[in-house]
């Protein structure tokens, strides 16, 4: 049976839910599917979606993670929800810039700013 790691930490704030990626590297299809399942479970529990994704631990990711984020974003916007990414390291931010996904996602420097932006 596949080894399922607890790869996100979920914190419920006043008006938003903060999901922190625990892993330093997000690469394997299995990990990405696990993340998608975890994030979908979080969304399923929310009436008004206001989600912060915290990348503070993430040092490396593949383009498959960008795909996961786009699928998640589509689902959130279909439900008129809000999504902000935060604490993205300079190297990872460069990946967003190259792919021009900085035009698609709201990105904040840190969790506090992300929560303020969503308030």
């Amino acid at each position, binding site marked *: 049976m596949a080894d399922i790691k607890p790869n996100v930490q979920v914190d419920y704030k006043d008006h938003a839910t903060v999901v922190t990626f625990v892993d330093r590297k997000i*690469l*394997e*299809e299995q990990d990405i599917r696990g993340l998608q399942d975890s994030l979908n479970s979080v969304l399923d529990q929310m009436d008004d979606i206001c989600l912060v994704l915290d990348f503070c631990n993430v040092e*490396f990711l*593949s*383009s*498959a993670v*960008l*795909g*996961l984020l*786009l*699928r998640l974003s*589509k689902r959130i916007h279909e439900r008129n929800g809000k999504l902000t990414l935060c604490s993205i390291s300079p*190297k990872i931010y460069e*990946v967003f810039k*190259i*792919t*021009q*996904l900085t*035009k*698609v996602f709201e990105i904040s420097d840190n969790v506090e700013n992300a929560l303020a932006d969503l308030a």
Partner: protein
Amino acid sequence: MTPETPASCSIVLESRPSALEGICQQILTELKAFSFSEDDVFGVHLALEEAFLNAVKHGNKMDPTKTIKIEYTIDRGKVEIAITDEGDGFDPSNIPDPRVGDNLFRPEGRGLLLIGAYMDVMEYNDSGNCVFMAKYKRKPTNN
């Protein structure tokens, strides 16, 4: 101390995403030994992951009976990596730009863009089943 002799290796791997891990770590360790910068190591790592996943998914179409060959050479000035799958190949010029129009919102199709952005050379063979990638420690000037 930076090694004098180039490091090179040729290996045939199973066609599954996790098969890359060992050789990838070996390449990253060699790059550090040859004093490539952290940014260079990050870029080569990303290109390697994307190219290998392309070979597994799009080249060998997730067929576990097929294999993928990786060949690399690292010296003081550059790293060269060739990845060959057993698929029918493709024409990279037919891959749409993921930054244009609605493609920006598609969840797939960013691997080649990232490889091209992080490596100085990205070339496919005529049949399109082998990608050759190179990164120079210092980019060559066009004199």
